[in-house]
């Protein structure tokens, strides 16, 4: 059978809850979604659970996605990433609660190694940003900090941090070929 539809048509069918579109969306974007979850969570088992739960929730929710929300690929990627961040923060809270902070560095080490060695394209694009935009963007993307935490960490006013992150993300998206 021919590749039936482009991403636009797939998104329309997904928004209409057509079953084949749900399966086709995973077939097309599964690698990106799994990779996104893995890079946040640092292990395969958690990444699998995260992708499954995030996609299933979007699928079951009648209003989660409509065409006004933009590209299905981007929407699902952000859903999966935000789900992964929520899980990571919950795990960190549990770890702190049980005073097992020593268990944390193991997973971050794995992520850190991947970041340095294998993210050349992303790193190269980030390195072209001014440091005042790159720093908060890296803290948000790689360390999953909130803008309040980033502002405190860098000792910069909240509004300034927000605008620097937004500007940096726009530049980075353009550099990486994000659709505009």
């Amino acid at each position, binding site marked *: 059978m021919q590749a039936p539809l482009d991403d636009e048509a797939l998104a329309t069918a997904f928004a209409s809850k057509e079953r084949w579109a749900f399966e086709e969306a995973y077939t097309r974007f599964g690698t990106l979604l799994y990779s996104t979850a893995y890079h946040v969570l640092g292990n395969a088992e958690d990444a699998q659970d995260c992708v499954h739960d995030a996609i299933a929730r979007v699928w079951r929710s009648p209003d989660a996605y409509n065409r006004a929300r933009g590209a299905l690929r981007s929407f699902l990627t952000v859903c999966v990433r935000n789900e992964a961040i929520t899980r990571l923060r919950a795990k960190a809270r549990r770890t702190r609660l049980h005073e097992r902070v020593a268990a944390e560095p193991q997973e971050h080490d794995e992520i850190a190694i*991947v970041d340095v060695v294998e993210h050349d394209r992303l790193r190269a694009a980030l390195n072209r940003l001014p440091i005042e935009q790159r720093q908060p963007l890296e803290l948000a993307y790689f360390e999953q900090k909130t803008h309040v935490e980033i502002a405190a960490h860098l000792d910069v006013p909240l509004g300034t941090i927000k605008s620097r992150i*937004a500007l940096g993300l726009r530049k980075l998206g353009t550099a990486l070929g994000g659709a505009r």
Partner: protein
Amino acid sequence: MSAHIGDDAALYALGALEPHEIAAVEAHASACAACSRLLAQAEADVAAMAAAQRQLTPPPELAERIFATPDAPTPLRRSVSRASWIGALAAAIALALVPTAYFYEQSVAMHDAMLADANAMARVASSPHRRVAFTGQNASVMYAPDGSWYVVVIRGAKHPMHVTWAHDGEQTMLGTAVPHGDVAMLYLPKSHRMDQLAIMSGGRVVGQAQLVF
């Protein structure tokens, strides 16, 4: 309306908002087209970042889990006015009572599906149409003489089945008929005539219909 989301679009897409701020962004974007576009662009930028990282092949069992996800409830057609909805519902109920039709003794799930597809029912009930049986499958297709809509009904379906349009030596996916009770149905509003439809299961054609216009 609340203030536009502005730079919060980037923070939302990056997962960098505080939990209590997320709902406010989503609520505003759902009612503001400009902010919805802003959010979509920020999400595209974050997706571009994610795609620039090392890509990992997901384990096959993840696909199995994803594909085992139950069907989503079909969204109600919100644009249908109350009067027309009631009319369509009446038509759906009337159709359900026709003893020779395929809606006889349907399950509650099928009834829900009929409500959700009230437009399709209204079409069948009120519009002139033709009907052709599929060969190789206990199924039929009702369609408008001008090709503006099609309703495929598959009886005895135990699992979702894809419906395709065969043309120019290719099969174009039209949608999936999902069973409710013993009947799977697919409503296809279209703008063109499709003279050959096929039902597919497990990657192979299990039923074919030749439509006449």
